[in-house]
């Protein structure tokens, strides 16, 4: 997994609540058997004016100029500012893959859907949680000031604004450790092979019908 330590980047505001993973990456692109290449289709239905299909040359498609990510001032953004319940709906991990492939490395929102939140963590995409009023303030500042950037320091668990205001965020210590060190969960779990085998032996006795 990609490591995450600190990030300083341009912020793009996605001003809608309940953005679902179908919107983040529409189903027609889920036919791919790869993990990469989803960036051009991030928010596909909002971003382009035509109907997208896999295999198109997406760089030639007509852009929806009103869509926030198409505005030149947000070019190169690496922090997505979002509203409550971001990433709800489908479990598709293609959503964080698409966000990362586009160039986002962190999201800031008041809340996330559970599966999406987990999927981000497994891919080194940091989902920062700040309360509604702070997020609201960040929206106002981002919109007011072109080129608005934030600094995120995972080690310190802080988000710092250009004026020097620092906001603390909470994160599960285990997840933080994995992100900072780029650790792969599977490798960690396989350190406990004996525990898994012991459990299986017990379970086989208690519930033999679960084993064929």
């Amino acid at each position, binding site marked *: 997994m990609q490591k995450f330590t600190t990030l300083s980047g341009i912020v793009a505001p996605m001003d809608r609540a309940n953005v679902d993973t179908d919107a983040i990456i529409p189903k027609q692109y889920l036919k791919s058997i790869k993990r990469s290449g989803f960036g051009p289709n991030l928010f596909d239905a909002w971003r382009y004016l035509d109907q*997208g299909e896999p295999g198109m040359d997406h760089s030639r498609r007509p852009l929806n100029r009103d869509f926030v990510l198409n505005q030149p001032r947000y070019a190169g953004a690496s922090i997505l500012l979002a509203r409550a319940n971001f990433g709800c709906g489908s479990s598709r991990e293609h959503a964080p893959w698409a966000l990362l492939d586009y160039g986002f490395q962190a999201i800031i929102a008041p809340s996330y859907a559970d*599966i999406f939140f987990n999927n981000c963590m497994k891919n080194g995409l940091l989902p920062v949680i700040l309360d509604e009023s702070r997020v609201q303030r960040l929206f106002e500042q981002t919109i007011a000031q072109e080129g608005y950037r934030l600094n995120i320091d995972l080690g310190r668990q802080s988000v710092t604004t250009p004026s020097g205001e620092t906001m603390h965020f909470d994160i599960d210590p285990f997840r933080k450790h994995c992100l900072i060190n780029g650790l792969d969960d599977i490798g960690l779990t396989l350190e406990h092979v004996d525990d898994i085998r012991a*459990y299986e032996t017990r379970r086989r006795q208690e519930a033999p019908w679960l084993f064929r």
Partner: protein
Amino acid sequence: MSGKTLYDKLWEGHVVRSNPDGTTLIYIDRHLVHEVTSPQAFEGLKLAGRKLWRADANLATADHNVPTTGRSAGIADPVARLQVETLDRNCTQFGIVEFGMNDPRQGIVHVIGPEQGATLPGMTVVCGDSHTSTHGAFGALAFGVGTSEVEHVLATQCLLMTKSKNMRVRVDGRIPAGVTAKDVILAVIGRIGTAGGTGYAIEFAGSAIGSLSMEGRMTVCNMAIEAGARAGLIAVDDRTIDYLRGRPYAPAPQLWDQAQAAWRRLYSDEDALFDREVQIDAAAIAPQVTWGTSPEMVVGVDGRVPDPEREKDATRRESMRRALEYMGLAPGTAIGDITIDKVFIGSCTNSRIEDLRAAAAVVKGRRVARTIRLAMVVPGSGPVKAQAESEGLDKVFAAAGFEWREPGCSMCLAMNADRLEPGERCASTSNRNFEGRQGSGGRTHLVSPAMAAAAGIAGRFVDVRSWN
């Protein structure tokens, strides 16, 4: 000390190891696999040179991408075909049982698990699909995972988790005639919102839930994720056990009594404490119709499309405005005045035999309205299809002008050829009315099978309670 909830019992029964950092390694009894979310996981496993931990815990099927007509010709779309073939190849290579596209047992992953008895009480069940919550209807801890976790389960048979909080939604009283499990769960989501269950496992309880068939309970748990909860749960009772008896993957006869005794302990203790409780009166629930682009945007069929200007919260007001614009609806429109173009009866929410019977009863001896461009019925699995055909339901649908298709996800998410065209409006028995879900620009109204069927006949939404 207070008692334990059903969720607590299931959780504690699967702890392999509690880590000092607060995470827990949880054992997974059943892993269901489908073509869309597994290829990258199998690839990851191979790239890391890791082995599959336990082949017999896995069961696979192709459902999202498969065509619902002309199966013998194979899949025309080369990208979809490659994905389905990749699943076939991975299952062969790793020795996983797969119900391939032309297997008579093939179907939507959440329909076939219970149907085969591969979902059992007391299990942990996962799948790379958010509607895995469906299986919680059997007193199993079932939840959707992403592809990295699919790989984690393939490699270790475990997941690294933190425990959710406990919520109980009690639905008490008599469910009125014409009101179904689908209406119950839509009403619950309307009440608590699409993020109301975030961070919780929701147990559905109360006399109304107890009165539901297993099919109805699956419909309720299926949409727990639409309330934000990864897992929905219902305690085991006689109905659960009767449903499972004799199914292909159910315990062998010599183990049946032992299994049954264990399953009967799967309920929340009288004195168990929940972090949140919600009470709903079943008698007050009307058939539900969604009007917006989130399942929480729902009203009774006798209601009207709400007016965003009356909403005080700015973010919600903006969401409502956007939804109405996308849906092409004006505030104040009576639900009964909304006309539709297509009808979709299917999906892991409502494609089981009971759903098809309910829809058939409504359309019997009638014809779809002339304004309807397409009305389709997509059974959830091969066995559901066969059962329906043996009861003559296919003929009832065909005579009414409904197309009778092969099993799969179909127009629930429109990854195959079944979809809405921009601007088309659909009465759908599926679970998500998100923008573009059933086809780019398509407008989805979520309803029960009986309501979808009646809308197809009338060409607009009608109240099935007054249908005769």
